């Protein structure tokens, strides 16, 4: 995979998140976000190994996945700001962006919920005669959810072309992995008969290699895989943490965790000119994204009752008629 392309995606996600945090602070994005900063190499590497018609399911910390899979950053920013021009007309927001044309079968605010969805979608594509694969991203916290393990079982049992990508950033909110996971994450994949590997999640090229291998296996009909990407969340669990210091990670730990930065790792492989040119283009794109998001109209409350049902029924007002 072209190092410039990997860098571009890492940089785009990093700067997108930083700009989004600014909009959280200024009140344009209400409800906050779960920043993906520090974990960008995973989305870049995995999605780099996918085709547009491949499928992903994402998480509460999903901006990176959605952008890396090709979503328009401009409409994504508008989505976060709750505007009608957003990917989902402002109704999905940070945790529920989707773009079905790009195989983005939804970020998901329910931890662990994406695994079975990805498996089902992948099964369906194969049944329809396609060679597409699906990727389910999830965190280390999600491996404690029953439904994710049920998805592992179904995928293993039915040889489903799905790749389970665990982003092990060391914590589920404030719960350290050691406190939340008995045994190992890899062991969970192995228990269901899946090839399972642990990789450096800070280097997009390394992630890409592992993903490409798993994708090739899945496309060839050889079934599901688990990739555990070791990473570190540089920023808050959620932006609420910017106001409430939670003190579950020491300053030393933060410094060590941040010392290997995917941006530096990917950037070191480029010439200064290439890097500067990529950076400048991204700045311009994101300036436009922020401008567009803030200038876009807010949803009309009058359409609140639309779209709940496809046919026959309209949402009720709840009150006495």
């Amino acid at each position, binding site marked *: 995979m072209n190092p410039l392309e990997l860098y571009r995606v890492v940089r785009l996600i990093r700067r997108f998140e930083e700009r989004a945090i600014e909009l959280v602070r200024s009140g344009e994005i*209400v*409800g906050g976000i779960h920043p993906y900063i520090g974990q960008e190499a995973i989305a870049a590497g995995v999605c780099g190994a996918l085709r547009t018609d491949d499928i992903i399911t994402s998480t509460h910390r999903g901006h990176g996945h959605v952008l890396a899979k090709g979503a328009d950053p401009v409409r994504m920013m508008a989505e976060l700001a*709750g505007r009608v021009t957003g990917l989902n007309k402002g109704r999905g927001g940070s945790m529920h962006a989707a773009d079905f044309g790009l195989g983005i079968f939804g970020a998901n605010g329910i931890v662990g919920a994406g695994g079975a969805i990805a498996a089902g979608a992948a099964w369906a594509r194969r049944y329809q005669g396609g060679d597409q694969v699906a990727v389910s991203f999830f965190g280390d*916290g999600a491996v404690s*959810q029953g439904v994710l393990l049920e998805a592992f079982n179904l995928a293993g049992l039915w040889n489903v072309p799905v790749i389970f990508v665990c982003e092990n950033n060391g914590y589920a909110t404030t719960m350290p992995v050691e406190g939340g996971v008995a045994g190992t994450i890899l062991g969970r994949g192995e228990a269901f008969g899946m090839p399972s590997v642990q990789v450096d999640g800070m280097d997009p090229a390394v992630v890409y290699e592992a993903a490409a291998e798993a994708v090739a296996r899945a496309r060839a009909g050889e079934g599901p895989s688990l990739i555990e990407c070791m990473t570190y969340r540089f920023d808050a669990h959620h932006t609420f943490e910017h106001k409430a210091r939670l003190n579950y990670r020491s300053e030393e730990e933060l410094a060590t965790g941040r010392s290997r930065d995917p941006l530096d790792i990917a950037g070191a492989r480029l010439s200064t000119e290439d890097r500067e040119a990529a950076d400048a283009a991204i700045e311009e794109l994101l300036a436009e994204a922020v401008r567009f998001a803030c200038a876009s109209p807010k*949803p009309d*409350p009058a359409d609140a009752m639309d779209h709940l049902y496809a046919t026959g029924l309209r*949402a009720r007002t*709840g009150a006495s008629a």
Partner: protein
Amino acid sequence: MSTTMAQAINTALRDALKDDDRVVVFGEDVGTLGGVFRITDGLTRDFGEDRCFDTPLAESGIMGFAIGMAMAGFRPVVELQFDAFAYPAFEQILSHVAKLRNRTRGALSLPIVIRVPFAGGIGGVEHHCDSSEAYYAHTPGLKVVTPATVADAYSLLREAINDPDPVVFLEPKKLYWSKDEVSLPAQTAPFGKAEVRREGTDVTLLSYGPSVPVALAAAEAAVEDGWSVEVVDLRTINPYDDATVDASVRKTGRCVVVTEASGFAGVGAEMAARVQERCFHSLAAPVLRVAGYDIPYPPPKLEHHHLPGVDRVLDTIARLQWDDVPMGSGAS
């Protein structure tokens, strides 16, 4: 003393931990962090990790674990982080927590408290604002409690923890930071007793939990329109206090049910049905409902349209067929 609802709940947990060593508090991020709303702040520090501890991210497992602990003599107090994150635990709650006593013909009680920060009004997003009370209220075997005042938050939670039956304790998250002049410990009326929060003569507003302050504000605003509005706070949805509700409606002759939850097939529908069944001859107008729309909770910028506010309550009061009967006469 000025006390917040968050402090009242924290103090109730503390006092319960102190008074009864069978009480154990656990859930996601309740230990180190003290809960995402800081409701369990300091409990691990002060009572140790055996009494207040973090769990993995596994609601179904947490709930099943609590059942086993309760069977073996503990009094688990479980926090489910937000309303919608209780849903992975529904199999355990609906199929086991609610049914074990009946299934064993009383041989086994499950003194479990399931604390759920619930409902909206804080600019939260989908999965973080659900009014989920109807799911629980519809399930026989569960007691369902939702405080609207600081004193009730303390007193009802203490009672919930002491109760031999499973109690779903729904904490209106928008009221966590509401303040009352209360000193703790506070003792208020027991489960199954509704309270008249404001007296009036023309119409009864029936509500509970997060909707009580809305009803009170509407009652205040209605003074200008010449209506004297009574506000009843259920406090506990199950058990349900028909007597207090009936007395109020029989006095005023009109009733509006105010809930933040979606209206269709909700707790508000049950409330309206009971009033109609029991107070029919006292009613001068049909019982009307003001409720959240029957849609998934909208994004933060739209939530104020969704939530029933003072205006929607006043508009509904205005529809109570005042022209048919002289205003303020009641009908009984």
